[in-house]
């Protein structure tokens, strides 16, 4: 009697996926059985799930550090430092989004369960992407993540912009997925495997005399991934979607989706196709240069703060690509450090936007921020820290993040793209200054000195998110050592089964 050989399963490494997916489905089940669910329950459930994933990532990190990276489930899924770090980033983003969501849903009078369910499912997809050791698994993760986000974008039923955002995101996203899938197919054709480790091995041992199929595959993969991380020229959806989608969802898109996208990009490009870096690295530096310049300069022209931050997120994607194009360990570590900082900056900033949006989620014009320091001094102060962080001012996390990717670019002799990025950063600074000028230097029409009184109107959840984000941004800016060490240890490695 022969025994069926089952693939090895590392249950501990699957904990985040299990927690998030089971959490989401359980919540959906309970919500459809119990007619009147207490308002606070879905949020509390999501926050607890997110925190549980965050807590679970600590022993996972130690396990990976001591026992080394592992591949399991027949070489389909792997766990390494980067997997755990990205999982933790996603968990933080889930908790932050959930904290922001409830007051938002209550204010906008929207049904209260779907957002949390979709959020957790989307995060599941992100974790799968971060642990993919196979192109097919990567694609599965990407689709789980994306489809949930398409629906999330449409969640505000009564805002036509929200519907528009979802439709745009869906149509363009589907295109991008098609590109990605075709790229994967070509890569399979060129190398004979979808397993990342086998692809890398094949490329390092076999010299392809006719590498057209491989290059076409890489190009299509790059297009698909560049769309997901909103790099120019595949960014057109970003401003409309950021402007239309509900503000807490935008926080998730900016922090979570971007982190997962870059995790996938690093896994595929830097780690798997590292031997062919000379083929894709120039293309990525062009994307990086375009993203920083277009993101920063178009942001200057905006009058809607949400669109400003949307374009600035494009510029941030450009900076992240600067680390990717370096195609080495320093660049990859810099990307992860940047992602951690950016998660804090993005969730914090969009938390402020959620609060400022007001009923109807529409008060996002620059005029609405005039004289904010008189009306809400604490909120204005916190937003100042976050904006200065985004500008990359020293002693904020933003500076440390930019320093890392720039160092990686310069070490790889990418002087031009590094110079372009820094000049664009100066342009981007003008964008953040415009918001600061509005908040501090212009008076609102009805100059009422309400003092701290109105700060009481900031919901507790938003306060926690903004507070933690500001504290984190400043702490990383002053003592960056621990984050840099963490990011260095998180560099992904490929493990064959």
């Amino acid at each position, binding site marked *: 009697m022969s025994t069926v050989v089952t693939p090895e399963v590392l249950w501990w490494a699957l904990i985040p996926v299990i927690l998030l997916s089971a959490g989401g489905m359980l919540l959906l089940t309970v919500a459809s059985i119990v007619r009147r669910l207490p308002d606070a329950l879905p949020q509390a459930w999501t926050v607890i799930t997110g925190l549980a994933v965050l807590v679970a990532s600590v022993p996972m990190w130690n396990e990976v550090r001591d026992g080394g990276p592992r591949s399991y489930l027949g070489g389909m899924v792997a766990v390494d430092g980067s997997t755990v770090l990205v999982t933790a980033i996603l968990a933080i983003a889930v908790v932050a989004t959930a904290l922001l969501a409830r007051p938002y849903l209550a204010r906008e009078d929207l049904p209260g369960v779907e957002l949390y369910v979709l959020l957790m499912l989307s995060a599941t997809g992100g974790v799968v992407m971060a642990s993919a050791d196979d192109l097919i698994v990567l694609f599965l993760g990407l689709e789980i993540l994306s489809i949930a986000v398409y629906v999330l974008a449409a969640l505000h039923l009564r805002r036509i912009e929200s519907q528009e955002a979802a439709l745009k995101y869906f149509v363009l996203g589907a295109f991008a997925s098609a590109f990605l899938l075709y790229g994967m197919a070509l890569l399979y054709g060129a190398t004979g495997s979808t397993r990342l480790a086998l692809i890398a091995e094949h490329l390092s041992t076999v010299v392809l005399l006719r590498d057209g199929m491989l290059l076409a595959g890489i190009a299509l993969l790059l297009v698909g991934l560049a769309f997901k991380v909103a790099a120019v020229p595949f960014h057109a959806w970003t401003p409309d979607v950021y402007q239309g989608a509900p503000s807490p969802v935008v926080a998730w898109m900016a922090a979570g989706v971007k982190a997962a996208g870059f995790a996938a990009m690093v896994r595929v490009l830097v780690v798997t196709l590292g031997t062919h870096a000379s083929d894709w690295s120039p293309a990525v530096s062009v994307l990086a240069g375009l993203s920083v310049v277009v993101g920063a300069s178009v942001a200057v022209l905006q009058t809607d703060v949400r669109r400003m931050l949307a374009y600035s997120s494009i510029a941030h994607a450009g900076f992240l690509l600067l680390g990717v194009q370096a195609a080495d360990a320093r660049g990859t570590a810099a990307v992860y450090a940047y992602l951690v900082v950016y998660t804090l900056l993005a969730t914090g900033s969009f938390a402020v936007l959620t609060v400022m949006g007001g009923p109807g989620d529409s008060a996002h014009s620059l005029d609405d921020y005039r004289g904010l320091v008189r009306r809400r001094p604490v909120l204005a102060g916190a937003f100042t820290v976050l904006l200065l962080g985004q500008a990359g001012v020293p002693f904020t996390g933003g500076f440390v993040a930019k*320093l890392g990717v720039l*160092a990686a670019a310069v070490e790889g002799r990418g002087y031009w793209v590094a*110079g372009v990025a820094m*000049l664009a950063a*100066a342009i981007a*600074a003008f964008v953040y200054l415009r918001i600061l000028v509005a908040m501090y230097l*212009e008076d609102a029409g009805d100059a009422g000195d309400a003092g701290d009184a109105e700060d009481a109107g900031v919901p507790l959840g938003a306060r926690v998110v903004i507070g933690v984000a500001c504290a984190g941004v400043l702490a990383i800016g002053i003592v960056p050592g621990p984050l840099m060490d963490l990011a260095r240890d998180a560099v992904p490695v490929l493990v064959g089964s």
Partner: protein
Amino acid sequence: MGALSTFVVASSPGVPFAVLPALIVVPAVGALLVVCLPRRRPELLKLVAVATSVIVGGMSVWLLKGFDATHGAEMQFTSQADWISDLGIQWLLGIDGISLFLVVLTGVLFPIALLAVDPGHDDRAYYAWLLVLEAGVMGVFCALDLVVFFLCFEVVLVPMYFLIGRWGHGNRAYAATKFFLYTMAGSALMLVGILAVAFLHADATGTSVTFDLVAIAEAQAIDTNAARWIFAAFALAFAVKVPIFPLHTWLPDAHTEAPTAGSVILAGVLLKLGTYGFLRFGLYLFPEASHFFAPVFLTLGVVGIIYGAVVATMQRDLKRLVAYSSVAHLGFIVLGTFALNTEGIEGGLLQMVNHGVSTSALFLLVGMIYERRHTRQIDELGGLQKSAPVMAAVFTLVMLSSIGLPGLNGFVGEFLVLVGAFNAHRWWAVVAAGGVVLAALYLLWAYQRVFHGPAKGDNAEMPDLKLREGLVLAPLLALIVFMGVYPKPVIERMEPAVDALVAHIEEHVDGFHEPTSRFGVDIEGAGDHGSDHADEGDDH
């Protein structure tokens, strides 16, 4: 203060603790303290802020005593702490004769600026930002690590932006934004340059990445062509900060719209970040490139002297006039620096301190006039001498110091700069000397219009200096006279560092000899004749 214990003190003659980190940490802690105080107690806020800055000022003056002038050019009071060990970035602090007096100047000017004027509104934020500014400036002058230098160089922008924007006059939002963007854009490429210099140094020497200024500068391992490009990136940042003509357009706006304390700090200390940067991170780090580009900066320096003076003469706004006079004065400093000889550099260095003292005093006086008359238009003032004789006397003294009258501090610096420039490039010095005449013209003419003549309307009843104002100005007046009459203690401490810098340039630039007096015996190194500058760059 716990942060101080993480520093490893390497050498501190006569000082029992890490004094340089304390110069940075104390104001930062003071700022935190101010933020935690209740906002409705302006007098308490001011007390804490002034006390903090007096402590810092005391420590910086104490450095004068502890500083060992016989120690040669080595860095003193050095201390070290790791920051980002992965990239080899560390808090490496130390001062020599070049930075010593700028640290002291900073330490002295901040309490004066804090005491001189009250913000009028939002006191808490005002004092906190001023203290943050002090921490940043101290960091710039003490940093011996390139990234930490950049960190402090950039962070200074934020408090200054808010000081101009929130407590300034007139078109303050425009002036603040222009100031921030100009300087940020200028220094954008410097960060790339800093990273490039460190990685190229590491490649060339085969060591791990370090941003240690002294190690990189002494090794001079980088290829000449690359060094020139990187120097250009640095120079752009410093040229905007100085500012060198034609990058100066932010200065008149920022100085004029800033509140008095902001103008004092901006003129007194912040402009020195650029000229100090040229000495420390230009001449020392890239001697060959500095020599190569020297004709450009000499020319721009001279243009700045004449242009600043001419434009200052045309101003109708007294504060704007003082602002443009800064453009001229900083032209002198640039001229002295790029003369590349001991007299020129020393004169430039002295001029940095002198300009800090005299121009701060001028801005204080203009601020006092504005407080009384609510105008800075020269046309609307006049005859103030009758109602405010003491103020007129003080103004005269400060003005004469700014003109460079012998016996006052301005003369010593300007004279040395001109001697240095004359030895190196005669005709440049001749043109620059014209600037001295113009300085006399615009300042004396302004004085005449403001203080002499018949007093119309409110000008006749303008109150004279109050005791508090007199006390604030007194230390500056004392410095003006003391440094004019007896500059030896200052020069003595500067000289070893400046000599070493010139020797460093001679060592690393082929065929370059310090341009010394052509009337003495030592003219063998006179490869460059003062009258012929076209081939200046080719003589190495």
